[in-house]
């Protein structure tokens, strides 16, 4: 029987590898394609797309803009969301479910539903077509992920350490930097990474709030897809997902031991 069971696992594992890895193939191949007429299995190879990407100031500067925007968004999200995450993770109080649903709203209400009204208001208060406007708008949509993720981390955190430190005469800042942050560090990193990724991949929001003024990488990518320049679009896609994958690789230790996988979203 044990043998049977292990055999029935193989098709599912094969499915997993195909479902995840096969989608990478056309992206990589197209990024090195010059022309690729049907029904050829292989393109005529060329590095045109890559040469173009690295010589095109618009694309290079959009990488910079994306990094600046997503870093600012992550920092702002952490500053705004940290104390709420701690309250939700370590305390029981009346109306907690209502607060949780309220904080979850930006993550579940479609971006399109909120962004039209947002644009109208941002135009009135001169925040549209500006980097600041885009950062503020994105922060709203990253907050739920950071708060609920970090709240789950705080559930496994022992508040007594802080009380002990306090009795020993540590002030709030010392407790935060020398007790709390070291204790939750892996979970904190993963939650921030989550916020960063959500910000990094925003398209519609940036398009409608930033207008032509804030050109992030997703905007470049959609422009290339619309003009059907697949080789360059695929090269940009690779540039786009590489940093996130590198970050994932660096934090995969956290993912499996302390972060999203173990104590993360599912415990909320």
């Amino acid at each position, binding site marked *: 029987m044990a043998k049977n069971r292990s055999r029935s696992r193989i098709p599912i594992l094969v499915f997993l590898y195909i479902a995840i890895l096969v989608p990478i193939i056309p992206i990589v191949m197209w990024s090195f394609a010059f022309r690729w007429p049907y029904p050829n299995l292989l393109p005529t190879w060329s590095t045109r797309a890559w040469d173009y990407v690295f010589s095109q100031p618009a694309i290079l500067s959009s990488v910079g803009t994306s990094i600046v925007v997503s870093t600012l968004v992550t920092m702002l999200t952490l500053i705004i969301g940290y104390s709420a995450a701690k309250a939700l993770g370590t305390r029981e109080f009346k109306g907690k479910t209502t607060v949780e649903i309220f904080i979850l709203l930006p993550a579940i209400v479609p971006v399109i539903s909120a962004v039209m*009204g947002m644009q109208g208001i941002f135009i009135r208060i001169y925040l549209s077509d500006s980097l600041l406007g885009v950062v503020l708008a994105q922060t709203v949509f990253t907050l739920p992920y950071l708060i609920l993720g970090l709240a789950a981390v705080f559930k496994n955190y022992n508040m007594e350490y802080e009380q002990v430190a306090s009795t020993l005469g540590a002030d709030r800042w010392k407790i935060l930097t020398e007790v709390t942050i070291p204790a939750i560090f892996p979970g904190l990193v993963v939650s921030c990474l989550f916020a960063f990724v959500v910000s990094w991949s925003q398209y519609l929001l940036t398009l409608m709030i930033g207008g032509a003024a804030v050109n992030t990488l997703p905007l470049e990518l959609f422009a290339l897809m619309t003009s059907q320049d697949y080789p360059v679009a695929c090269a940009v896609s690779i540039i786009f997902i590489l940093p996130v994958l590198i970050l994932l690789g660096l934090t995969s230790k956290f993912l499996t031991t302390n972060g999203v996988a173990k104590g993360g979203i599912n415990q909320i």
Partner: protein
Amino acid sequence: MKETKTWVMLLPAILVISILFIIPLIYTVLLSLNFFSITSNQTISLQAYVNILTSSTFIDSLVFSLEIALISTVASILIAIAVSMTLRRTFIGRRLSLFVYQYNIPVPHYVVAISVLLLFTQTGLVSRWFYALGLISSSSEFPMIVFDQNGIGIMIAFILKFFPFIGIAILSLLLTTIDDYEQQAATLGANRTQRFIHVLLPMMMPSILFSSILVFAYAFGSYEVPFLLGATYPKVLAILAYQKFTDIDLNSRPEAMAIANIMTIIIVVLVIIAYLQLNAMNRIRVKQNGEE
């Protein structure tokens, strides 16, 4: 050290969400009611809703969006359960499998959509493989998977993205808490099916439900994926709303807002129901744990 009050700790987040998110939603409602009309001086009007709800384009889009969201979510849950159940007992190549399972979680949905586009159009990579194998003799014989009226391409992209997201949540449970309970049930003589239905599934439910809410809401409201993979008709609601919003005819703006509000209401109602269900489940679980 005096303890900070709970509401003070919650305040920054609640304030920011209220100002930058709730107020725009209210503003959208007002715009949909023609509150700030520049073309007429009539006050509140439900005309936009009447126009929308009586148009077959809107109804088709509504059904299409719900269909896509429902099918993608259910299929993703089933695949996630199957893969997670398999991976928890896989020991050879497990680290690699776990990494592969997590790989596309940070990859944006529309990058997966680009992959689906390049794989499954009639001149896509899969069509070329079929041609090379002699299964088809021209690209037009390859079925319409992308840009099709049934939204199959859109659903494939969603499922590829969603099943690892739901699956990782399930797997982490399977690898930690649930295992002990299952061992106990096995000792008491429960067979595999019984253990799955009476032990594993109930314990996985809250986490499946929570990740399904996020996934369903995303599939229902996504603009980017249908933009890349959708047919010209029917359109998903997000695309329909965006097109009405950017229409040269300013009179269609209230209709765009009306669609947006209907989407918001549908999602919020679903989430509240799911959340109440989730809380009920957690309460039962706490109760059961208390009795032990």
